[in-house]
């Protein structure tokens, strides 16, 4: 049940991070996310630091900034703006505002396992299985927000270089159990 096509095998050649690849399982409910064509650029497997690495660094930076800001639901955290722009920034800032308005914070840790599926000098596409099993919503009073479990989310992201700085410009995170 473990292995599913949610990771393109070719990208395993990318030595990105020593994160266990156990990240993907098939959804228990027989979900079959229709797999869009994934263009894997073989050239991206070069081990030297290149656009792919910079894109992944920006992607990881965005999530790290989001996780930090979500501890206090601070939509104005400067780090988010360092790593995210356009729709990605809108989504995160909007989400943090909503959390703040509801009296909600998010605590715990998030496990990423990003793979570059396409890369050029100015744009990269990332596929991830965002593991939020232990990144949970809490009331500001300290108790868990609800009793629903966290889960894993198939996520695709577009990362762009503007004037040499890579930022995530959009991402699409799918529901729990999609990878």
């Amino acid at each position, binding site marked *: 049940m473990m292995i599913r096509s949610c990771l393109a095998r070719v990208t395993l050649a990318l030595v990105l991070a020593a994160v266990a690849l156990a990240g993907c399982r098939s959804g228990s*409910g*027989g*979900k*079959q996310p*229709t797999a869009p064509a994934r263009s894997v650029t073989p050239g991206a497997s070069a081990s030297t630091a290149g656009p792919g690495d910079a894109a992944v660094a920006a992607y990881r930076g965005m999530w790290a900034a*989001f*996780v930090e800001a*979500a501890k206090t639901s601070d*939509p*104005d955290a400067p780090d*988010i*703006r360092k790593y995210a722009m356009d*729709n*990605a*920034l*809108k*989504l*995160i*800032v*909007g*989400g*943090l*505002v*909503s*959390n703040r*308005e*509801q009296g909600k914070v*998010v605590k*715990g840790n*998030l496990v990423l396992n990003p793979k570059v599926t396409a890369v050029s000098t100015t744009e990269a596409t990332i596929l991830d299985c*965002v593991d*939020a*099993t232990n*990144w*949970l*919503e809490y009331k500001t009073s300290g108790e*868990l*927000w*609800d*009793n*629903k*479990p*966290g*889960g894993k*989310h198939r996520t695709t992201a577009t990362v762009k270089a503007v004037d040499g700085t890579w930022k995530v410009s*959009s*991402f*699409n*995170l*799918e*529901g*729990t*159990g999609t990878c």
Partner: protein
Amino acid sequence: MLTKVPLRLAGAGLAGLMAVTLLLAAPAFAGDGTGSVDCSQSTPQNPMPGCDATARSGDHSGTTTGGKAGGQRAGDRKCRNPQGQEIPCERDGAWAGADGCYYKPVDLSADSIAALGGQPSGEGGWYEKTCYGTGPGDVTTGFGGPVWIAGAPPVVSPQVLARQARARLTLPDVAVRVNPSGDQLVGLPSWLSLDPASWRPQSATASVPGLSVTATATPTQAVWSMGNGDSVVCHGPGTPWKSGTDPMAASPDCGYRYGRSSAGAPGGAYTVTVTISWQVTCAGAGQGGTIPGLTTTGAVQVRVAESQTVITH
């Protein structure tokens, strides 16, 4: 979380092959922190900022409570959804709109507004919009970020009117005075004061038929950043220095004494910045209270000289 189960209907040759998406009656929110950025919760009726609606069209077969009629606060003062069912007028701090969804006005910082794509021009407001599912299969949407509602507010409540009234407040420019005029002298008292017009309560009113709310902004304190790292907090506009006053006398209510000349500062002068905090209260519609405050700022360049000259008149 929203559970979607696509069922493939038999063979590929089957005409009209389609994926049927069953929306199971399940809460729309995952228990983990990704719920607020999960675009699968974005719907045409309740789009989330940052989610590309067009790319996902067809992906939302959630039951929408379309329809225009409906209404809130009909003649009997009850709130109804477009189907005519009575619904609570207020829920989780938000008010029912004519579409049966709930709206709560939100205050956004300039940085947040910039991140959300900037403030649209014209009258309108930022709201958290939540549409609660009612029947089986209906999905609750919202909590994905504030949305801009142009024009008149989608809901009428004293709180929403208060925001509107506050948005209409025109606060005066901050006119800063540091006296005695001319260069300040190291070791001698500087009198800090604001033009009285900078420190005057302001009011504005917003109303709909039968309901009116007035917001009043009252200055509460002025924080003077002296340009050298020091700051002074004053609870009034300060007292203007008058010629003839003993130059050794300190201001009775808002003063400072520079310990070093501004020669080393950029341009040879300190930039003195004053930030006035305004408390905003609202009254009307049988309610009163305080809503988030406002600030105004002003600045002036001040040269501070080492001269030991005693000013005489």
